[in-house]
């Protein structure tokens, strides 16, 4: 997508579909401002004609109809005016909410489809600030700032023209003050713009600090680090508060000058107008007309400072929002990606794959080559940090190899459509992430339309049905965020059921049974062999019991495959794997 030239152009782009009704609210704004000038005129007429005027006492008896007409006009006009105000307010709220909705859902969608690089760049609290606080500044822009600009400009221009038309010399002497106010506002803008940038940074830091503390509450308590956390948070709280103060104080530094200049306008009017009257160049009536409308020049001037302040807030916030709005993931579908219509068969092949993280400094995988034929089980073993997890993440194309190719069904994964590729893969990650939803909802995550019996079936496959059944609310039990309330083994089993529930052609298990006891693991192993759909299994595991029956075992050391073969072959080789077997059978004790 082409990035528009300015923030306003971007906002305008996002207002499509609502521009016409927004335009109505602009017209409405002008209309009710005009009517605001009419009602005082009617009241003045009533007072003039029936109370203070020359023939007031007579008029009240002779022109009673006019009297009532004026009263009715006053009541009706007010009603119509307030109705317009109400409709205008509703209109701008409606449009601003629609645009907010549009941008927010767009951003969410955008964030969801980003690659891993994006997620290691942006912190949760920061992204949340962009989708809440920053977006609010954009909403405010539409709901208030633009309307205020129109109101101020319309009022100012109309009155200025009227003034010039009445007496251009007097008008110019009053308007001569306006440029000073403009200069002050420009100076103010230059000062306040960086403040708003800083302010939203501090807000983001505050959000991040609080977010991390809440997520890590267990660790905080385990180490009795409450006071340390409070001190850390206080720092963010203080900085945010100080920046807020500074921003407000910046306004207060310029406010007195703006206010003084705005107040000078009626004084200039009084002095110059007075001199003109004294010299006979102006009538009293003309002078009164000037003073009656001087507020319509003054108020927009006062409002400008406010508008500028809010505009800068919008500007700082929209920078942050647009950054996400226009960020493109590097891992995307190729324009000529192959369209797979059928379920894939499940062949996985690595051809001389090397890999290095973009933010890492050392290569993680070197020259990895292996083939997993459809239906085979491949076990991957190796030391902590040897690159096992990195390897499997290349299959669903979470990352791209720096060299070599990853092929699924003999097609380079780069040439497949991401969603089609991933639909065929079931992955149970090491870091089990469940959602605060029911157990049923969690298992059915990959396929929300799956039947209840199927959910139960997959829970049984992953040896989770027993403990789920024991829970008071069974499958309707809500698990807390990140699956709190469940033990590690229970979480892993639900995550396994979730991966199985999509009936993947390729099942990848990243040490999914590490916290599961042996007996349960055996059960799981058994059901994995009896799945009722064809499935290639790639399993990272530490336990020999898991790897023993694999068609092929890959031993990875420092990012290279050092041993590969069946259990028996590797045992015969007396290498790393053999040692592992020795270790685990526990003969050393």
């Amino acid at each position: 997508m082409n990035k528009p030239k300015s923030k306003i152009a971007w906002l305008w782009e996002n207002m499509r579909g609502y521009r016409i009704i927004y335009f109505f609210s602009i017209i409405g704004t002008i209309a009710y401002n005009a009517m605001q000038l009419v009602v005082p005129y009617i009241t003045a007429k009533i007072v003039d004609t029936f109370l203070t005027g020359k023939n007031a006492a007579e008029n009240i008896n002779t022109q009673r109809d006019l009297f009532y007409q004026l009263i009715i006009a006053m009541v009706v006009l007010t009603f119509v005016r307030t109705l317009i105000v109400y409709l205008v307010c509703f209109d701008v709220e409606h449009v601003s909410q629609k645009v907010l909705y549009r941008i927010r859902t767009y951003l969410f969608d955008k964030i969801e489809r980003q690659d891993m690089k994006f997620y290691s760049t942006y912190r949760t609290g920061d992204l949340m600030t962009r989708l809440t606080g920053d977006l609010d500044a954009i909403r405010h822009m539409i709901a208030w700032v633009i309307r205020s600009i129109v109101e101020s400009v319309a009022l100012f221009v109309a009155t200025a023209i009227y003034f010039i038309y009445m007496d251009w010399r007097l008008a110019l002497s009053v308007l001569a003050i306006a440029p000073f106010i403009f200069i002050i506002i420009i100076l103010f803008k230059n000062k306040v713009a960086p403040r708003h940038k800083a302010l939203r940074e501090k807000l983001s830091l505050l959000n991040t600090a609080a977010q991390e503390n809440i997520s890590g509450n267990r660790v905080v308590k385990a180490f009795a680090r409450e006071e340390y956390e409070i001190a850390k948070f206080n720092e963010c709280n203080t900085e945010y508060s100080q920046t807020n103060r500074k921003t407000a104080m910046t306004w207060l530094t310029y406010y007195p000058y703006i206010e003084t200049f705005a107040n000078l306008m009626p004084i200039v009017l009084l002095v110059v107008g007075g001199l003109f009257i004294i010299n006979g160049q102006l009538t009293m009536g003309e002078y009164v007309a000037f003073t009656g409308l001087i507020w319509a020049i003054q108020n927009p001037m006062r409002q400008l400072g406010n508008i500028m302040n809010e505009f800068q807030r919008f500007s700082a916030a929209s920078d942050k929002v647009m950054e996400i709005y226009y960020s493109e993931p590097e891992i995307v579908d190729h324009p000529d990606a192959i369209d797979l219509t059928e379920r894939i068969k499940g062949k996985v092949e690595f051809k001389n794959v090397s890999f290095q993280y973009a933010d890492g400094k050392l290569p993680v995988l070197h020259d990895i080559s292996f083939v997993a034929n459809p239906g085979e089980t491949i076990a991957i073993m190796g030391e902590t940090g040897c690159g096992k997890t990195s390897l499997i993440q290349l299959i669903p194309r979470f990352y791209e190899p720096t060299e070599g190719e990853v092929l699924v069904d003999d097609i380079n994964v780069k040439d497949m459509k991401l969603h089609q590729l991933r639909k065929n893969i079931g992955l149970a990650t090491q870091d089990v992430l469940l959602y605060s939803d029911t157990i049923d909802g969690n298992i059915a995550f990959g396929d929300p339309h799956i039947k209840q019996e199927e959910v139960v079936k997959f829970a049984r496959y992953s040896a989770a049905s027993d403990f789920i059944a024991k829970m008071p609310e069974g499958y309707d039990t809500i698990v807390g965020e990140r699956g709190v309330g469940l033990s590690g083994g229970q979480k892993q089993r639900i995550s396994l059921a979730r991966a199985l529930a999509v009936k993947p052609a390729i099942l990848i298990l990243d040490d999914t049974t590490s916290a599961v006891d042996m007996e349960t693991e055996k059960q799981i192993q058994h059901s994995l062999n009896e799945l009722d759909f064809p499935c290639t299994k790639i399993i990272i595991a530490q336990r020999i019991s898991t790897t023993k029956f694999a068609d092929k075992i890959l031993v990875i050391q420092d990012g290279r495959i050092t041993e590969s073969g069946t259990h028996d072959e590797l045992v015969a080789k007396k290498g790393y794997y053999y040692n592992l077997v020795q270790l685990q059978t526990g003969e050393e004790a």
Partner: protein
Amino acid sequence: MARRNTYKEDEVLETPFEVRHLLRAFVYIKKYLGKMIFALVLSAIGGIMGLFGPMITQHALDDAIPNKNVELLLWLAGALIFTFVVGVIFTTIRSRIMINVSQNIIFDIRKDIFEHLQKLPFQYYDDRPHGKILIRVVNYVNSVSDMLSNGLINVILESLNLIFIVIFMLCVDVKLSLVVLAGVPILAAFMLWLKKKQRRAWQQVSNKNSNLNAYLQENIVGARITQIFVREDENSETFGTLSDRCRKTWLEAVMYSNLMWPGIDNISVWVRAAVFIVGLIFMGTGNVSLGVVVAINSYSARFWQPIMNLGNIFNNFINNIAYLERIFETLDEPVTVDDAEDAIKMPDIKGEVTFENVTFSYDESKTVLKNLSFTVKPGESVALVGPTGAGKSTIVNLISRFYNVNSGRVLIDGQDISKVTLNSLRSQMGIMLQDSFIFSGTIEDNIRYGKLDATEEEIIRASKTVCAHDFINRFQDGYQTEVKERGSLLSQGQKQLISFARTLLSNPAILVLDEATSSIDVQTERALQQGLNAMLEGRTSFIIAHRLSTIKNCDKIMYIDDGGIAECGTHEELLAKKGHYYHLYTAQMEDIA
């Protein structure tokens, strides 16, 4: 216990009346009362200065200009400038004071809510999405500050203004004043109706925003899961629905809020019309003079201005009380696990741990531990084995008093742990949880979390003990490597090693390892074990592990099943017993062999 909350459900809140909240908010205002009164006085003086303006202008028009007195005109202009400047200075000073006051109030509330959150037990965090807690600390607190500072001052100013006008009006003519005041009951009825609608509507806004925040946070954290399950479309749709609900509730709320101002405006015009009509009819009967009608008409206009301002402030109150009550709700959240009133400091722990008839359940529906009793001698290492969900983690959580027991006692060195301060207890324990949470920051920062004043050597020693030193050094920045929040940098096993080092660094008297090494490969674990054995010497330790090779050297093995101890003894004893443990062990060996 209520059901766990999710993004799908609104949080319940039972608060019938809101004046209570305002009174309560007074606690935060009290500290700044002096400053606020000073600001109030400045505003009042500024207001009075403003009254001179029209008088001086009048003088110029009536006197200086008709008499062609240029000098007087200039003097009067000078006087006008003076009153304006004084007014501006006063307003500026008031604003300066109030900015500080309102920022201080926000700071205080936020500090309180955060500090309170630190005291809340696991249960609190387990029962609701974290996004819903977060929105209270950050977004809600921001919303309420203006109401508590400037809102309050303006209420007082406008009320004073109103009272003066009413007094003036009554002095002029009681009957016509009553006509003006007749608008008040109409207004009151209108506002009462509006308030009810509005309050409900703003509560909904806060609910829906809270739901949105919850979903947002969970999905940012779980983006990888979304992608692997190709759930982007569905999730976007859910998020769209949540966003749309926010939009609708907001529109409904402003639909009511925006009625306030036009409502008052219309009522004020009806009243003015009534004044004209009644006044002129009375005038016909000779009861009222012309001047009185003119005066009452102009007072009536001025009478409604402060009311309109008060209406706006009122709107603001109603809106923000929806947030304020959520803040207070959090502050009121009972600290179920807290220091007893006469809590003492836990003396240096020797390491004897005793459970005395402990019964425990997370909620009423299911008892996790039943009448559990056991004693562990100082320096003993105890392994807890048994099926997942049997209650092993629960037992170790109770030793650190993460939860309160329902009945029975947990004693350390003969001291009931519910009678000592949490800080003194937990700071002597080293607990490694299943979920190895890594903070964003450097690797060193993360290890140092266990002992804030640790030297570099201590950190390196701890890392060496847990075999983390080598892989840390392999990073280009070594210990200074930045670990990003959800970064791909560390594998799960590496995270466990780092949190292991963190735990060891805290030099605990009692060490708890809850599946601490599950993601670490067997060889690394072996190496780690050797370092660990030296560390464990003389410390009481509790180890939960499924890998039996990890635990068979423990002094005591407890087989936990169904909330009780099914078997207890050394590895050899239990094997000889040919019970659960034997079964478990042989199964494991068979598998491998």
